[in-house]
């Protein structure tokens, strides 16, 4: 009976595993994201270090690097399915929410990898002092999940368009403003060492944003996925 309890997860796990296998063999998204992130980080660190940046500047800079790096890679999971024409085989075989949850998890892992690479480098290169490390990690995870939840749905919308790159950014930015503002404020507070209690409203905004976006994704994805 225990295996039946997780039967709903078998499909998304299959989609995730397929994307991980494909990514491992092609480095299609990882290369784009990591190269962009490290390059941006290097440029930012040269400029900002000279300005002796404080938390009010370090926080938005970190999220700008994460945001633009994510924008360069998170759309690819759907775009590649359309470009290589594999999307039809997927549409014919899998429940739409199976695809959505598998892709969402893949993007979450991709952004998690990006966080693991960029954030330690950022802390070292920018000589950042984190006043409340646990809060910093919590804001980072919640903000990243917010980014992923919104951009995965937008990626599915733009995948069939001819000017995907521009459209992805144009559609994503307005949706991502709440999560970016909250993540920047929360990160700044964590860098200053503000206690948890004062930042919990910001953390709640990030969590609620993710919940709303994932719920909207599960509800809307079927209409986005199939041809109008």
């Amino acid at each position: 009976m225990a295996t039946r309890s997780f039967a709903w997860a078998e499909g998304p796990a299959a989609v995730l595993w397929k994307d991980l296998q494909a990514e491992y063999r092609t480095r299609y998204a990882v290369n784009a994201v990591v190269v962009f992130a490290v390059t941006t980080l290097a440029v930012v660190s040269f400029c900002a270090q000279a300005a002796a940046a404080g938390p009010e500047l370090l926080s938005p800079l970190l999220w700008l690097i994460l945001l633009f790096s994510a924008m360069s890679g998170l759309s690819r999971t759907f775009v590649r399915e359309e470009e290589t024409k594999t999307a039809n085989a997927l549409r014919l075989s899998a429940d739409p929410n199976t695809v959505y949850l598998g892709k969402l998890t893949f993007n979450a892992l991709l952004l998690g990898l990006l966080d693991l690479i960029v954030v330690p480098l950022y802390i070292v290169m920018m000589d950042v002092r984190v006043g409340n490390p646990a809060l910093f990690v919590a804001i980072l995870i919640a903000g990243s999940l917010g980014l992923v939840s919104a951009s995965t749905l937008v990626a599915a919308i733009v995948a069939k368009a001819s000017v995907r790159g521009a459209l992805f950014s144009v559609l994503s930015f307005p949706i991502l403003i709440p999560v970016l503002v909250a993540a920047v404020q929360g990160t700044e507070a964590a860098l200053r060492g503000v206690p948890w209690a004062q930042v919990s409203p910001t953390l709640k905004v990030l969590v609620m944003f993710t919940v709303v976006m994932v719920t909207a994704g599960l509800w809307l994805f079927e209409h986005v996925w199939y041809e109008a």
Partner: protein
Amino acid sequence: MGIGMVTVELKGLSKAFGSRVLFRDVELKLHSGQCLVVTGRNGSGKTTLLRIIAGLARPSRGQVVITDGAGAMDPSRLRKHLGLVAPDLVLYDELTALENLFFFARIRGIPPDQDRSEALLEYVGLQGRGGELVGTFSSGMKQRLKYAYAIQHSPSVLLLDEPTTNLDDDGVEMARRVITAQRERGVLVLATNNAEETAYGDQVLRLG
């Protein structure tokens, strides 16, 4: 996945792109054991009609109703009972042939079975090639793999768009075996301009 008698009914099906009408008010009914052949010049809407039956495109008007003993199929049930081989349906180049079959089995809710998958590859003439990346396959081998993908779940409705494209003589023979087997299992729809394949049709729909 076989579920006995299946009926595919096209009710007043029309498709237009802007002012260009591909087909209008197509009415027909197919029962298990029957084959519909769709013919017509390039651009007449053969592929579009198959995409509509498969649920990959929407008609401008009318509807496709596929029923079995349990009633009309919703998209979720249709996915378990429908197979498609088409030029615009591509499998994953970066996975091996077996990995492709395992993946599609899992998302179709079928437990991946090494023996069955290898038997399927043998059936389509890809024995011993299961461990190779599909990206290294020739176009004919990819077409054979599409057949394995399409019949993996023993669909009661099988749609074949240009079924012998890229296939050599052995491949054409394999396609014939699939066609014969499908006529015993359910409904078959072929989109082709090949005179030999047109002969399979119990009903022939000419478009354009």
